[in-house]
């Protein structure tokens, strides 16, 4: 009988707010605890000019992201196509910057094709709804993507491009993920081509005005049920219910939805202790730092360039034109991923700026000094511990996979890392929130 049910949701990202909204709609008494002083989790907006916002976190969506699209429509928001027209810039393997039509890197096309053939074979073999049951799962989960590449990629161009590709696709250093996780991630997101593509793929659109508005609007509807700056310290269960404790006090509820990344879910004092942790020693942080360089206009377009670049030397391993739909300014977004993200994040702010501005200047000639500069370091973000998503290293899928969504008594799990569909994406987060609602509806 949900009419009298009391529920707590831990985390006001997309998963938690989706769950809270769904439970509230069923008449449950819901309290959402958010550690930060803002909602949104791994979505966050930056106002780069008055009324013009860019995405400091999750940004893109495609047609297959049906739950994001429904939410966008329900909340009265709109999507806007990502802009990709024009030529690309590449700085690869010690060669100077080169301009090429479309997104073709100046590398051996057959060698890249063979690499994608191998990746496609791995991806096609995965059981997406239960990767731990994939044929040869144990063998695939025993080695890292880096070890796999050392063994299977013989052409230097494939070896150069592979870590850049993995950085773009899943913000992973090849040494951090098992082959099973890599194959699962690519499959979960719709396959190699879909996950890689802008038009007709997972980067087709952005949300006009910023993806952070999804959570802001959900939170506005939930009103004072959302408590900011309230990190949950303890979740103690007994026969009759659950006590959720923050620094300021506690609430007593019938059930809890924990909608935070695995390492953060483990950091809560759970009593009784779950029989298994959510993250293991080989679960790594998604390695992404996002850099925004703001110019008076998207000046590269006048030179026939799209703003897209791929570079084997950092810090900006790829760049993309993220100029707000509202106009006014031009925004070049730089992605610093994999090991480069850790190195870049450790530098002083002035050095980060100098390196990024100089690199942008080499990539896109005739750029003036930027009028705005923003670095969003997700790797060291206390209440995300990485982005796009947790990276499962060797052994983790076999150990944690079978209990990915199994409730711990009255505690249910959500978050994009609990969704085998579109794992790591906004779509996965929303789907996980909806699943948690269904679980509570069926149980209480």
């Amino acid at each position: 009988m949900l009419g009298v049910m009391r529920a707590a949701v831990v985390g006001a990202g997309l998963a938690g707010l989706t769950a809270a909204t769904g439970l509230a709609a069923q008449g449950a008494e819901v309290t959402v605890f958010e550690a930060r002083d803002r909602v949104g989790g791994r979505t966050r907006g930056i106002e780069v000019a008055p009324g013009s916002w860019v995405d400091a976190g999750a940004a893109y969506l495609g047609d297959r992201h049906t739950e994001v699209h429904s939410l966008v429509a329900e909340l009265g928001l709109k999507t806007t196509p990502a802009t990709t027209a024009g030529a690309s810039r590449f700085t690869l393997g010690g060669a100077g910057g080169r301009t090429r039509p479309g997104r073709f890197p100046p590398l051996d096309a057959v060698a890249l094709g063979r690499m994608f053939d191998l990746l496609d074979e791995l991806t096609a073999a995965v059981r997406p709804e239960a990767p731990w049951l994939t044929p040869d799962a144990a063998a695939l989960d025993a080695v890292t993507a880096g070890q796999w590449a050392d063994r299977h990629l013989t052409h230097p161009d494939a070896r150069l491009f592979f870590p850049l590709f993995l950085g773009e696709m899943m913000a992973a250093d090849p040494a951090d993920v098992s082959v099973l996780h890599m194959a699962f991630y690519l499959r979960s997101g719709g396959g190699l081509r879909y996950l890689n593509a802008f038009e007709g793929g997972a980067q087709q659109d952005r949300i006009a005005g910023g993806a952070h508005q999804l959570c802001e609007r959900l939170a506005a509807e939930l009103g004072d049920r959302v408590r900011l700056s309230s990190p949950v310290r303890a979740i103690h269960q007994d026969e009759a219910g659950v006590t959720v404790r923050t620094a300021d006090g506690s609430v007593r509820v019938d059930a809890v939805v924990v909608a935070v990344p695995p390492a953060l879910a483990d950091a809560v004092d759970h009593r009784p202790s779950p029989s298994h942790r959510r993250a293991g020693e080989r679960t790594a942080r998604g390695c992404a730092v996002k850099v925004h360089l703001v110019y008076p206009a998207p000046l590269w377009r006048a030179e026939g360039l799209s703003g897209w670049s791929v570079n084997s030397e950092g810090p900006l391993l790829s760049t993309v034109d993220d100029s707000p739909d509202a106009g006014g300014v031009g925004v070049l977004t730089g992605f610093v991923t994999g090991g480069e993200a850790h190195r870049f994040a450790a530098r002083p702010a002035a050095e980060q700026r100098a390196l990024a501005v100089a690199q942008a200047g080499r990539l896109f000639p005739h750029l003036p000094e930027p009028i705005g500069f923003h670095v969003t370091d997700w790797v060291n973000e206390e209440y995300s511990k990485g982005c796009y998503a947790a990276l499962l290293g060797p052994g983790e899928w076999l150990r944690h996979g079978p209990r990915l969504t199994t409730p711990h008594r009255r505690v249910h799990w959500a978050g994009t890392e609990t969704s085998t569909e579109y794992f790591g994406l906004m779509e996965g987060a929303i789907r996980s929130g909806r699943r948690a609602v269904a679980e509570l509806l069926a149980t209480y």
Partner: protein
Amino acid sequence: MSVDGVTDIFRRVLETAEVAPGSDFFALGGDSLLATRVLSAVAREYGPELSFEDFLLAPTPEALAARIGCSAS
């Protein structure tokens, strides 16, 4: 070894039967990633290792077959 063979490669890579000898790869939803897979299949089945430039100049099965020198057979 023929235009038919290259058309078949396009069909497999694009996962669509709607490929004619004169169909443009990009108009059918092809992109740079899929183009590399056409070129790896061409190399595997016919030998020649073509470049992105070759492909951009010959983005249809008949043009690509001509480029790999197999259109006559």
